């Protein structure tokens, strides 16, 4: 987990009641509050869409409940903790920061991220990590159809099962799966992990309070691309 910039006792905290407010009003209030506070708490979010969009300050934001679609989209540096669930596309296009979701999430978790870490403690929907360029996505439960679709970098770690067409058209990056891989997408193949990778996974997962048995780490497989130029071009052009 990213370390908060200051001791909790010294942190300046600001609360925003989302009730009766629009996403635009809340996001404006978050951006203003982020200038002078270290921690922002959003109360009564009621699964509202577009919360914390475009926040580029390295502050802590707590969503005290569930968020709707595009939670924490396009953030750079913020540390977001959603106590409930999230809808479609949480952390979409994040470039740096952290989004932790205690419940489940919908489709497109971490879509197009360039950096940072997304953690969902329970199940997620389809197309997890589609078109991501870098960064890390951790799923505590199962991940749905076409996870890692056209993934171009970074890593996805699924502790449970991964559904059909995993790694469809994957170009770069790695999908680690602790459970069952239902089927692979085009250009995807399964490989065994090196011991170094297991150690790296363990360090990462422990850091996010996922405490697995040693035997569980032995069950992990990884999905990687067969080729970086699967559709056209030459192997010599693989980048």
């Amino acid at each position: 987990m990213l370390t908060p910039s200051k001791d909790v006792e010294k942190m300046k905290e600001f609360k925003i009641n989302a009730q009766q407010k629009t996403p635009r009003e809340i996001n404006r209030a978050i951006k203003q509050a982020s200038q002078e506070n270290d921690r922002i708490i959003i109360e009564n979010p009621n699964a509202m869409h577009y919360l914390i969009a475009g926040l580029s300050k390295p502050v802590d934001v707590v969503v005290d409940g569930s968020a709707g679609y595009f939670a924490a989209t396009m953030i750079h540096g913020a540390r977001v903790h959603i106590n409930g669930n999230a809808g479609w596309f949480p952390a979409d296009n994040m470039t740096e920061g952290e989004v932790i979701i205690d419940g489940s999430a919908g489709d497109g978790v971490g879509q197009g991220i360039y950096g940072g870490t997304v953690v969902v403690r329970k199940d997620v929907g389809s197309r997890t990590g589609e078109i991501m360029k870098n960064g890390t996505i951790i799923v505590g439960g199962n991940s749905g159809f076409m996870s890692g679709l056209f993934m171009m970098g970074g890593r996805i770690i699924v502790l449970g099962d991964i559904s059909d067409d995993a790694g469809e058209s994957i170009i770069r990056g790695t999908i680690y799966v602790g459970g069952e891989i239902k089927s692979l997408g085009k250009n995807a193949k399964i490989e065994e992990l090196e011991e170094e990778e297991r150690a790296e996974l363990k360090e990462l997962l422990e850091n996010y309070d996922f405490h697995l048995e040693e035997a569980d780490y032995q069950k992990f497989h990884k999905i990687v691309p067969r080729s970086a130029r699967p559709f056209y071009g030459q192997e010599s052009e693989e980048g």
Partner: protein
Amino acid sequence: MCGIAGVVFKDKKLHPVGKFMTRMLDALQHRGPDSAGFAIYGGLGLDEHEYLLNIEVKEKPGLLEEVKGKVNTAFPIESEEIIPSVENYIIYRCKVALDSFSQLKPLIMDVDKIEDVMVLNGAHSFEMIKDVGLVKEIAARYNTEDKMGTHAIGHTRFSTESIVDRYHAHPFQSYIIPDITVVHNGQITNYWKIRDPLERKGHIFETNNDTECIVHYIADKLAQDYSLEEALEQSVKDMDGPFSYIVGTPNGVGIAKDQLGLRPGVMAENNEVFAVASEEVALREVMDTSDIDQISPGESRAYTI
């Protein structure tokens, strides 16, 4: 985009399901502002063979009397109500007793022949409410918050191809068997492939709307003794395109989602309630839970009472 919702009270008793569905749809209002609709099951309390007709009538001198005369000639009107709507239309509601369900569709088609008149629906076990405008406006116009029932489905519409009017508001209903309704978010791209065989069997299509195609498809399957679950499972295999839709029947509610998972669907359940919707925000209006299931691509769920 469109918002869809469904709720079932598992104890089969009457609950203020109109109020709950109003809240669910209001929470989904951002998904579509064009029209909204409800199918509220279990609260009408009609006798066997009694049916409630909802008829859209333009405010023109003598037109309502012509409608009443046409209905009365076929079957005596037992009770009636007039609900003011917008754009110079009223909704004329009347209760009639038929000899059998097979007389309902011919009666509707006969009344539809009158210019500036359209029968929105005829039903025995559910109340159809649908109109143009926002959920809250429609709820106030039709007192949806006072409606009791066992289960309901509802819709907020973001129109894409079909026109915006009361008839094209969801739910859509089929008359292949009684009281089957559908609300839908998406498009059925192999529409004609689904419609053609249904028309060859004699089923009547009133519009070119793909939601009407779904409701006839499901009703046709149920008429062939498919269970609701089986009909939904088969529909996902037969239909192409991005869609999620909810079916209402006299004793249940079900949801299906396309095989690529291109339209949303979530579900929550406890000992009292089964609820499905486009988004979690609607489920939270009927139950206090954070345990939300994402409907997977190609998956269907149903609950019957």
